[in-house]
């Protein structure tokens, strides 16, 4: 399927919400869970989930009900996960990624990382200030989750902290990890500073499949 056909599969509000829900989870999601999360009937969820899987946007796995095996153990549950492949549609054709790779290479060669980190922190702070202006009374945690969702990180709560399911710079980070992860950390440190958030602190803590940055709860008394 062409990228544009794949992306077009998401052009349905319910299907889009199902995709967003499954993509944001760190576990494989079953039909019941997805249906409940989005507020629709199980059979409708199954139909949409299978369309998403057919387009390659979700991967399918099967799991037996716990503790059982062999004939009569019960039908295996069908589970869905965000697929790894990227799909991009730009009209007219734009290729920012090639430019980004060239620029990253130059920063790497010239040793300009400290400036990259300064610039990223500054840009993150502007994003943070804007987020705080939009929601001045929001608790830190809610404000940060909303801002991170806007930026495409797909945040999820993990105890007192927040983890990120998606790296918006994934392929670039794969080729220039310390450069791009350093930039990412600075962006998020800046965002927290700009939004005057004290309940969370950005740190490098990669987990398989997640973004390299996680936000740790500082134990600050402000509501999280």
């Amino acid at each position, binding site marked *: 399927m062409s990228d544009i056909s794949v992306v077009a599969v998401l052009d349905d509000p319910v299907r889009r919400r199902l995709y967003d829900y499954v993509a944001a989870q760190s576990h494989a999601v079953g039909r019941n869970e997805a249906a409940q999360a989005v507020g629709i009937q199980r059979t409708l969820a199954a139909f949409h989930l299978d369309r998403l899987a057919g387009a390659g946007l979700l991967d399918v796995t099967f799991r037996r009900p716990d503790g059982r095996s062999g004939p009569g153990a019960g039908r295996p549950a069908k589970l869905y996960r965000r697929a790894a492949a990227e799909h991009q549609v730009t009209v007219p054709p734009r290729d920012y990624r090639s430019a980004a790779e060239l620029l990253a290479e130059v920063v790497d060669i010239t*040793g300009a*990382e400290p400036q990259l980190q300064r610039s990223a922190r500054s840009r993150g702070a502007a994003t943070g200030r804007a987020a705080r202006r939009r929601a001045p009374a929001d608790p830190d945690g809610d404000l940060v989750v909303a801002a991170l969702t806007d930026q495409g990180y797909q945040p999820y709560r993990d105890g007192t902290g927040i983890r990120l399911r998606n790296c918006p710079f994934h392929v670039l980070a794969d080729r220039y990890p*310390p450069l791009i*992860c350093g930039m990412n*950390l600075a962006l998020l440190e800046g965002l927290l500073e700009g939004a005057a958030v004290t309940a969370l602190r950005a740190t*490098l803590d990669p987990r398989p499949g997640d973004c390299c940055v996680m936000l740790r709860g500082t134990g600050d008394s402000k509501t999280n």
Partner: protein
Amino acid sequence: MVSGYHLAQLNVGLVRAPTDSPELADFMAGIGPVNAIADAEAGFVWRLADGDGPGATALRPCGPDLMVNMSVWQSLEALRDFVYRNGPHLDFMRRRREWFHRMPEEHLVLWWVPAGHIPDLDEALSRLDLLRRNGPSPLAFTFREPYGPA
């Protein structure tokens, strides 16, 4: 992971200040803990060390300012995971410009060795030289342009 071969690596760095300077303090303090993490990783095989010192950093075979670090791993994935997907080590990598000059020539080389073979510094330096002269090849390559065992 391909049986029969291990992955060797060498990286060199030109420090910006003497190792006992305040500028290098965080780096020197972090070597021990980061090495301990590497040693505990499932795919780790061997690391160049100089006896009681904190890893190979006291060895200066290429002059007083050039630090060398050499290790062997069971697979490219195992090394890559440690170098780029381990929190404390990634943090070290992120801060490298505080401690090391930029090097216009290649400063990290990877190559395959028969499982059980421990390379010496001469072998490592000759692979780095190969990489610098010919670019990445099956005999000397990088994370960005890797090769499998021949």
